[in-house]
């Protein structure tokens, strides 16, 4: 109160500080929200092998591009601010250039922060995404032809993609060989999408979160439980007699 001379200076300082603080914190908030919105990954953008889950990745990746530099096939690129991928982060588009799945994982080794997890040492364990045969109406194998290209180019052939035989209902005399993806082996390299012969690929690789469903945690599969327990969990079941006219044959598959 008494030391009047210092007061105007102090007030000016406090006003200035409040202004700076308010402005800066508002800007931080804005940037935070912008980041949240910009963090959504489009369906056709895939992260390099070993990338942490997307949210963790955006906290860990410092956007230096060392993975891009060490990719021998120029598959990876850094996102431009105009792209839909978070600016400066590495990604690839399978339809343009697929991952060649180098055995020595140069991109992972180059990452200085571990945004590409250095614990990944076997490329076949990479999960960059998951292939999904999205369009059964245009896939040539679904039309009854023998294209098989996605199956043939798959680096994990016969495990990540298998051909499942099915009766062709249309011709009623031929077989269809349906490309079928198995998530326990598919690395998401994108070779299948890249090689699909259609104008627009019928098989696409999506980020795992987009491609994969999840069972309820409490679900149990009866047949697996039965095998684990070495027998039925609910004891012997009473067989009820099938009611039918005396001489009509049993439908196939029904127990006598």
């Amino acid at each position, binding site marked *: 109160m008494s030391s009047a001379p210092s007061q105007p200076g102090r007030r000016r300082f406090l006003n*200035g*500080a409040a*202004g*700076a*603080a308010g*402005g*800066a*914190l508002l*800007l*931080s*908030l804005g*940037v*935070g929200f*912008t*980041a*949240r919105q*910009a*963090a959504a990954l489009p369906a056709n953008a895939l992260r390099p092998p070993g990338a942490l889950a997307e*949210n*963790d990745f*955006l*906290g*860990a*990746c*410092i*956007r*230096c*591009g*060392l993975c*891009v*530099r*060490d990719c021998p096939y120029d598959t990876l*690129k*850094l996102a*431009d*601010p*105009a792209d839909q991928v*978070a*600016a*400066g982060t590495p990604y690839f588009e399978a339809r343009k250039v697929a991952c060649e799945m180098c055995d020595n994982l140069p991109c992972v080794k*180059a*990452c*200085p*922060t*571990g*945004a590409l997890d*250095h614990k990944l040492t076997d490329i076949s364990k990479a999960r960059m995404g998951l292939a999904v045969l999205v369009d059964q109406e245009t896939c040539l194998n679904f039309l009854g032809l023998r294209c098989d290209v996605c199956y043939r180019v798959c680096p994990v052939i016969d495990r990540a993609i298998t051909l499942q035989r099915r009766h062709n209902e249309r011709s009623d005399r031929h077989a269809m060989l349906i490309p079928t993806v198995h998530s326990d082996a598919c690395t998401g390299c994108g070779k299948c999408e890249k090689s699909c012969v259609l104008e627009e690929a019928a098989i696409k690789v999506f980020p795992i979160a987009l491609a994969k469903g999840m069972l309820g945690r409490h679900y149990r599969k009866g047949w697996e439980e039965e095998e684990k327990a070495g027998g039925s969990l609910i004891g012997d079941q009473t067989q009820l007699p099938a009611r039918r006219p005396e001489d009509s044959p049993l439908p196939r598959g029904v127990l006598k």
Partner: protein
Amino acid sequence: MNAPGAVRPASGATGKSMPLQPGHEAIASKGWLGAHKWLIARRLVQFTVLGLFLAGPWAGIWIVKGNLSSSLTLGVLPLTDPFVLLQSLAARHWPAAAALTGVVIVMLFYALVGGRAYCSWVCPVNVVTDSAAWLRRRLGIKTGKVPSSATRWWLLGGLLLASAATGMTVWEFVNPVSMAHRAIIFGGSAAWLVVIAVFGYDLLVANRGWCGHVCPMGACYATLGRASLLRVSAASRSACNDCMDCFVVCPEPQVIRPALKALNGAGPIIQFPECTNCGRCIDVCSKNVFRYAHRFDQRSA
């Protein structure tokens, strides 16, 4: 536009007719080269750093890989930017060994030569904002409003909080500094808009606005260099003729006065962490008041 008042602040100086541009007297007494020595050195260093990064993608000579956020030199020397790694830490990611080693090396280096030496000797945006400041001076632009120079400190803190809240390195979504460098080295078009925005801001809205008031990266480096060994000293301060040229060219003019005018018995060393050690004051002083020194060098005349 050519009135002297358009290009210099009211100085309360001696009333003799003053030259148009700062450094005029220095050029007369030391020659053009002598009055631009450190500026030329700085541009050389800045463009050499860029050249080292570009030699790989342009000529296939891989000396330095990566960018200023993190790089690897000759396959052995990792260097990592402290502010981007701080954001990552705030986002609760513990970085791998290379990034940690890199950040320790960078921190030790700038703790020695002055944190903001990064700003004036390495950062590519410095060329942009220096040009804007030069043009603003030339055109006599006085418009706009300068934010408090404390904004950067609050922004530094606010962005680390935002990183912690979102789990992401939030500033890197918009950071003009890393965007500019990435655009130069990795290509990219939209990033240039951000650089143009910074140029326009400094030219039309706030004199030395970006680097001197807003940039939280600069604030982080300033913190690093708080006790740096290399400093600018107003060693021959008694020779000062109050021409004000150093204040006009200095990107952080508030740092000069205590050392130059011996306020409250201050020594000749410019102690403020905001000083970028750019050496422009050394260049433009016709009386050779300033020189580089170490922080314990209290000799003055």
